[in-house]
């Protein structure tokens, strides 16, 4: 099935669209419209009405987040774009910036206007050097065209965008850790409250949004809130979503699909089915920190709300598929090792609890686990999930939760057989 394309409408595989191409496709019309005919508050209201939810993983309504921002407070304020895309199985922001970087720039300028922030930063991980260069070129082009810099389009509103390359750690994707990192400190998450909207970057009001979220803004401005909402296939969803496919599929690519598309359509139509004609066993529907969906979930529509009823989260919509021959204990162990390695080391459940969980899963994989280990694992899950300082360990417990929800008999099987049944 062919779906309407917004973010990928200029997509030509292997090529990047810059200023001329972007203008030709209607680029910067949203900005012109905003600056000429809308007040900052109207932009926020429009985004609120559009139902746009944050595309970085948490899915918080963007307009609501903006409405907490003290845009009339005097003094420096900041908009920060989170491009520390490091969730395993997630690569959509990278694809977007390799395809059409001006979308982000235009979205950021409109957002900066809505929030009245004269300074904006793109926090981009070092591995995305090509994207950073694309952005720098886009910033320069936008500046030259008068869409960025001092007194944009004669409106009196000025905005600067800085591209900041980070050293790149998973924790930098956590917004307060990102702000610490951007300030040149250790990227440890900060205590909330105060929230970034009150005390963020350099202790000033700050809003942090994901690349894809910001790239949607000018489409909402030009198309309107109702149109944007209607793009989704479900009542609760709004807009399209970039789905990055990976794992045991025939086609592992990034697709722009409407929110509410079923898992079945993603796997069997866009993904071309499970590799080698094998059966679908499970998937991570939204990156490594989301609980698994199993074969009985194939009819679940993937939007932010419907998926929670199935016991998982949409996350970043990086869909990683596992075939029938995969040991889900081994998958979970692999993921936990990643999270344990990426812990910043601040709080105990994450720093020391995750390696503990990894050790327990190793016992299962090595065939040395007993009933006590299973009980222990349950206890670890209970006391890490929701008990850590930031969402990293919480996310790490996603796969463990999925393991208990969908594949507990696999754990028991490891104990009974005294070995990994898939080896």
């Amino acid at each position, binding site marked *: 099935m062919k779906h309407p394309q917004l973010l990928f409408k200029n997509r030509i595989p292997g090529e990047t669209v810059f200023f001329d191409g972007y203008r030709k496709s209607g680029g910067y019309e949203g900005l012109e419209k905003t600056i000429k005919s809308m007040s900052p508050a109207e932009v926020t209201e429009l985004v609120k009405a559009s139902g746009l939810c944050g595309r970085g993983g948490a899915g918080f309504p963007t307009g609501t987040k903006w409405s907490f921002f003290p845009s009339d407070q005097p003094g420096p304020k900041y908009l920060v774009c989170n491009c520390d895309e490091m969730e395993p199985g997630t690569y959509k922001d990278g694809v977007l910036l390799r395809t059409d970087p001006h979308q982000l720039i235009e979205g950021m300028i409109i957002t900066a206007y809505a929030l009245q922030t004269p300074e904006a930063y793109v926090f981009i991980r070092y591995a995305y050097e090509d994207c950073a260069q694309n952005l720098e070129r886009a910033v320069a082009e936008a500046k030259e065209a008068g869409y960025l810099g001092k007194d944009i389009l004669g409106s009196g509103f000025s905005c600067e965008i800085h591209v900041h390359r980070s050293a790149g*750690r998973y*924790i930098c994707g956590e917004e307060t850790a990102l702000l610490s990192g951007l300030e040149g400190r*250790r990227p440890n998450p900060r*205590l909330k409250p105060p929230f970034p909207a009150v005390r963020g970057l350099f202790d000033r009001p700050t809003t942090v949004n994901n690349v894809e979220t910001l790239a949607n803004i000018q489409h909402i401005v030009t198309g309107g809130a109702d149109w944007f909402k209607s793009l989704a296939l479900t009542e609760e969803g709004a807009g399209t979503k970039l789905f990055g496919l990976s794992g045991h599929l025939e086609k592992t690519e990034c697709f722009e699909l409407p929110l509410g598309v079923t898992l079945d359509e993603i796997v069997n139509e866009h993904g071309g089915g499970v590799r080698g004609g094998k059966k679908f066993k499970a998937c991570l529907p939204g990156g490594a920190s989301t609980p698994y969906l199993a074969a009985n979930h194939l009819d679940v529509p993937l939007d932010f709300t419907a998926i929670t009823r199935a016991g998982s989260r949409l996350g970043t919509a990086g869909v990683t598929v596992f075939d029938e021959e995969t040991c889900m204990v081994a998958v979970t162990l692999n993921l936990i090792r990643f999270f*344990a*390695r*990426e*812990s*910043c*080391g*601040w*709080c*105990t*459940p994450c*720093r*020391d*609890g995750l*390696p*503990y969980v990894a*050790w327990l899963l*190793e016992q299962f994989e090595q065939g040395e686990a007993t009933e*006590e280990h299973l009980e*222990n694992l349950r*206890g*670890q899950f*209970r*006391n890490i999930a*929701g*008990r*850590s*300082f930031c969402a990293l360990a919480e996310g790490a417990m996603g796969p463990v939760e999925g393991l208990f929800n969908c594949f507990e008999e696999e754990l028991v099987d490891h104990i009974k057989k005294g070995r990994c049944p898939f080896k």
Partner: protein
Amino acid sequence: MVTLTIDNQSITVPKGTTVLDAAEKLGIVVPHFCYHEALGAVGACRLCAVYIETEQSKGVQMSCLVEAAEGMVVNTLEPTAVELRQHVIEWLMTNHPHDCPVCDEGGECQLQDMTIAGGQSIRRYRGKKRTYSNQELGPFIEQEMNRCIQCYRCVRTYRDYFGGTDFGVMGSRNRVFFGRFEPGRLESPFSGNLADVCPTGVFTDKTYRFKSRYWDLQEAESICPHCSLGCATIPGGRYRELQRVRSGTSKEVNGHFICDRGRFGYGYVNHPDRLRVPRINGEECDRHEALAAINDKIEKLGGEAVGFLGSSRTALETNAMIKSWAEQSGSKSVCFECHPQRDNAARSWVALRGDRGRSLADIRRSDFILLLGSDPLNEAPMLAAAIRQAESSGSQVAVIDARPVKLPFKAAHLVVRPEKLSTIIRALKSGAFDNFERHEQLFFEGVLKSIKKAERPILVGGGDLLQAEGVAALCELMAQLPEAGGDFVHLSGPNSYGAAMLSGAAPDFETILDDIITGKIRALVCVESDPFADYPDRKRLQEALSKLEFLVVADYINGPAAAKADIFLPTAAPAESAGTYINCEGRMQRFKPVLKPGEPLRITGDGGHPPRRFSHETPGDQPRSAAEFIANLVGQPVTINDLRQQIAADDDRFSGLDQPEQGMLCRANGELPTTVNREDVPGKGDDLLHLLPVADLFGSGPLLSYCSALDAVRSAPCVVLSESDAASIGVANGENVSLQTAEGKLAVEVRIDAKALPGLVLIPQTGADAFLPGGVMIPCSIRKNGARDE
């Protein structure tokens, strides 16, 4: 105030109190690691979990992060909270080595206590433990990173609280490392606090390593004798040896921390050269024999011919005994500080300060601080820490000083000649800056503007550089500050303030010296004071000494006076006796005896384990508290409490001295010293160089040169020169020069400082080689080494 219920007990606490603190007030200890009263809550360890049953913040919460609210119901024993605490302990113990039997922290280890309190007693994790290589961090702090439980207290203390920059956290996940970028001595003068804040044995006191178990230590509350701030300390000793000092807690003074000078400067008590037996003409004798000889001599000479000298490092009780001894013998020549400038600065402060003296706690809360002739890091380190707390919560700091004052925070700095300080303070009062240069005028205008804007400005002065005149000017300027503003002047010794109170308007040591030179005074009794170390004009002292018939010295350090004494009495060190110091803000604070005097027992491990001979006497137990010696001499056997009652009854400014409460403020008196400044700044010629001895962190003060633990950190003797003076002498940074003054000659290294003033040569008192006690400026000349003498 809000009332909440914790474990079915109700308590009312001020708004803003955390649930953890509220529980502690009820005697319910919620286990915790990362929370520390001075460092605040950061929510990292996740150990202080409790269950909150009421709607607002219902569920398992970190009690250090939740504010107590009206009607809140807290359950610390709810199973899910208990389970989380067990898990946190289990996680922390996965990597912690079970080396308690060989760990110095054993017995005072928070991890041991919290592991018991956490209720997780079985080890389920069988995996490998993480290990680290340790760093060599210098002579004070031993690191054993394998024991680390990552509470981040060390880095929050070292960096966030004290502003240190050479220590931090590196790496991530369960491999975070707390240390330096590369091995080396910790640079912060507050590094010792790592040993106190570390809840386990990662950072321990190296000077105390393998010496004692906590439960074997004799400890007592005490007051630090190394400067005038009066920080609370808890010295600990065993086998008649003072083995370490840790920080006490005093809300109004030092809070929870002390500086490295106070912590590691305890060796003078155990010094091997300490004289422990009374001597007559160098011959050891019995205590009673010596006392009788002193009495005989004073009787023979007549009291009027005897001068009595107490000191600012001697307890108030001892100084008061000296005073009554002098009175009883009919002497009018009694003085409590042999450094006249310091004496007069202290007396001036005591006499002229209003009732708006401020404490270190006030300084931590201040919103503008003006430092006048004060170099906190070298003179009174915890003052620098206090100012840093104000600065990091937004206070501005300005410094007017002759020295290139280095501070662990940002401050505006104006360098001026020391003799100009009083004039400047008076100009700040009048607002007339016509006689100053443009950059000075701008600076002063900025200062006045900041004072005007501030709600709680504080003037901080240093008695040494301001001297009596500057202190008086500072007191006058203070009167113009807003109501909540105030002043703070640090003096030289731990009891300078008390000594100045006792002195009142009595003559200073110069007058006593005059009388010795003219022959009016023929005997001098020095009690825990050493003019040969502390009086600034050595020639004059030598002249006086040659006329002196009889010198009595009673002291616990073997200073230059002891060698010259006709009769020497060994006294008990502060750690071996009880007493009271009055700190520079007038706070009476008691110290208690930790040990009884005696030769430290040394266990060598080579089979020579003492004692092999049994005796009913303790070797080296002859030192007595100086107050006790004097009481014996004047024939009134008194206990320290009787003495305190007597002092309080005699002088109502000391009322409260006999009360057990610590830290009462005593009233200042209104008497000014009658002395005149004998010498103005010598030789005002523009082309002359002046030598200004300046305080040094580990070098200043009469006791520090007897502390061997500090040998490794003492800076090499040097002179600090301005760029222009260095150029005209023709020396480069690091070159050796010969420094010549009327006092003598010294070969030292040159340090060029861009902030130093031309014409002024600074010599840090780095210990044995600093041949001046400080507090005065003298002319000097500097010659490049190798240049021919004129």
